[in-house]
């Protein structure tokens, strides 16, 4: 059984496939998209726990895609990827609601750790909302 679902969005096919393969071995359910528009289409259809999103892509860039993801699926956590150490894209990522960012190339362990942390946050958020809902329902006189 998979732990949670990840959508990998990157224009580099080799990176995408390799990452998906290695994360699948660690029981994550991975899907891939080659660009921002494809990713947004997939997210509209189905919910993903975490999105791994490259900043630099042809067409709709990472930051734009991030803002759109946060609009249509606010609970989904996004981890940004940057090809080179760019403070600007890191800051913009945080500003528009990304969970965190990673610099390429990265090792599998830190990536896995970061995705787990992102998923952990999503899960606790969801639980809190659920609990609040239950309390609200219980408080309401029937």
């Amino acid at each position: 059984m998979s732990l949670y679902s990840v959508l990998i969005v990157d224009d580099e096919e080799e990176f995408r496939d390799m990452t998906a393969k290695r994360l699948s071995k660690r029981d994550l359910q991975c899907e891939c998209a080659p660009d921002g528009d494809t990713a947004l289409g997939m997210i509209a259809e189905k919910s993903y726990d975490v999105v791994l999103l490259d900043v630099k892509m042809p067409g709709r860039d990472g930051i734009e895609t991030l803002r759109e993801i946060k609009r249509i699926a606010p609970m989904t956590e996004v981890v940004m990827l940057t090809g080179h150490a760019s403070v600007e894209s890191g800051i913009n990522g945080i500003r528009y609601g990304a969970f965190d960012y990673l610099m390429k190339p990265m090792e599998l362990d830190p990536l896995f750790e970061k995705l787990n942390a992102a998923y952990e946050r999503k899960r606790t958020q969801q639980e809190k909302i659920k609990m609040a809902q239950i309390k609200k329902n219980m408080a309401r006189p029937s």
Partner: protein
Amino acid sequence: MTLLDRLLTLLRRLRRSATAPPSPGPEELHRQFIARSRSFRDLLTANANTLAAMAELETALRDGRTLSMTFIRARCTLVTVNVFKIIHHLNRMADGRYSELERAFSRLHRQIETILDGRRKPATGALILDLRQVGRAQADLTGEKMANLGEAGSIEGIRVPPGFVLTTAATGLFFQRNQLYPRINHIIQQMDIADLEDLHGKSGAIQELIRAAPMPPELETLLLDHFDRLAEARPGCRVAVRSSALGEDLGQASFAGLYHTELDVGRDTLLDACKAVLASKYTPRAISYRLAKGFRHEEIEMCIGVLTMVEATVSGICYTRSIGGRNDTLDLFCAPGTAKGIVDGTRATGHLLLERAPPHRIVRRLEAEEAIAPWLIDAEATTLAETGMRLEHHFGAPQDIEWSIDRDGRLYVLQSRPITAAALHAPVAAHPPPADDRLVLHGGVTGCGGAGCGAVCVVHGPEDMLRFPRRAVLVVRHPLPEWAPLLKRAAALVAETGSEAGHLATLSREFGLPALLALDRATELLADGDMVTVDATNRAVYRGRVEEALRRPVERTNPMDGSPLQRTLIEVLQLISPLNLTDPASPDFQAGRCRTLHDITRFCHEKSVIEMFEFGRRFRFAKGTAKRLRDTLPIEWWVVDLGGAFVPHYDLSRTDIDIADIACRPLQAIWAGMHGVPWEGPPVAGLRTMVAFLFHSALRDGLDPARTSALREKNYFLLSQKYCNLSARLGYHYAMIEAMLGDRPGDRYITFRFKGGAAGESQRVRRIELLAAVLDHFGYRIDRLGDALTARVERESEQVLLDRLKVLGYLVIHTRQLDLVMAEAGAERSYRDTFIQEIEDMLNHE
């Protein structure tokens, strides 16, 4: 803070709550509290990440081994983005009341970026210069090598080959027109420098990029025109296309033989040859050399010298001060044909030692066996010595000179540069090797003194480089510059050919790597995996580990010292790591006073803790309100739950709580430490110290009645199940404990801060020393600044961290007001021993 200030603050606070919109309902408050707790925890994670990356940068500055531009840029980005996150989260917790911080942040961020980008001014000036127009004054435009050569040509009686220089303005134009730097940086940023295979792949990609880029048309025309002018004087002439880099003079680095030289180039291949030389800036050996010596590739600008070929009958190297022999002698190395074979170490080389003073008597002559007639007659040797000394005199330092003599007996100087300092270290006196059965090989030439021990790895070609293990003994046939990337990993170098004058020998001296050259049959007699000791000073190789050879100390210098990369790191660290805001009670503790990223981090951390309390106070909201923690000690403890810190059955309407109802593991450990050993109350002070104590209390606080309660101030714990933050004012000192026991190693840490306390400076310092000694004993990492102390432990297992927290719990209680008795010298030792003993008993007891 004066009483008036306090009153004003209080009034402002009251007014704020009075004008605030009507309190939102409990559900809304609960939602807000959860959002704030979440921001607070995210802030703490970013805080830990920032401090970890800062520590990595500081360590890199100290040991120099892991330093690279990629590393600095990546860590600086990590720090900057995480500080931004901290500010972002603080503003979320405080409804944007700290937006002032963003100004300080953007200023620092911009300054750091400017330093990291390097302030490279585009070169302006002629695209091509005739060598006769070139001198030292043009070094910025022509590179070191060609500036020196042009200058040498202007000296009376010294001949250099006719030629011209393609300047930095020209090569800069080539790089810029083809957008090469951004593309190269993109590749380099993704390179794994520890992985030689990756290094070769990326190096190939960059060189290909450069070779494939078109030469700007105006440059192409100029190049061919100048070539034609050379050919007018000597029809059918061929040229040598050589590198001449800029910026190599920075730091103690020779860049010996790292770049490419194309020989015998004609008009049809001139453009390709130029591009090949430019591309050689990115060979694996050049990249790894720059990384090892701390140079940024953008800072090394490449110029190109195009020189008419000299039809050499004999060529060689002259060191105007001998690198192996007596101080009053100079070295001449020579071989038939061009000098390439000597510097590549592939050619059998003759060696002459001459006196530096005229008439330059020949002290010693060593010629290769295959020489039938002497390669260099005495008269030529004397002329060379004269020329060498003239160059040394002109340039003001001992020179490393490359020369050729043509068939008409004319002497040409091809290059002249200062000998790097490393080469001039006094040679160590050699001892005859002990004649025992461990001796495998004896003889050869010392390239760099010293001894090293390791497993043999014979390298025949580039493919062998990839399997070269760390700390192995590098054994090769020829000491080619290609092997340079291995020097940093090797324990010693052994080659069958070569001389002290070879590039690899020069590089081995710079890295302090023991090197033994011209050792016949080394690749035959030494097999992969053999454990050997190479005693380069005494020119011997032994089987196994020979302690007496290794015991003589060899100085291994930090290769980064004085490098541009080190300077860059120092400059950015100035904006990152100094901590100016140390005391939250000081009037300087303000957003506008943040001068470094560390200041911002510290400021935000302090304010975020306060925000969490304030929220509870401002809204008097059931879940956020602090609960009094019941204790037998006469101290007021209050706890605030950030989520999951109380056991499920705890009744939230209560105003106090028992330790048994706390589910927070870190607090349980601290609490156990606080109560593990009974506290005997404040120690009894002598009359004189009591007077001093009162004096200092008065000095600190004035006659402020608000301060009389300081001894009974409330102390707060902020808690979640895995997190604990204690800010305590115990007696007159301030202590902060922060502990996180997460599942991931990065989320497991303890930070302890301690500061202040009445009593004189020397007593406060003595108390800090006592604390530091005890904490050090229990495995804390200590940073001290005056009477402030920070102690950290990170990434340990949960059990280890819980034990360390007990230590803190003990110390917080038992060092209360210790200043009073610490006035007596020698007191700290007895307290230290007592403390350590009691803590160990407490930890072992369970």
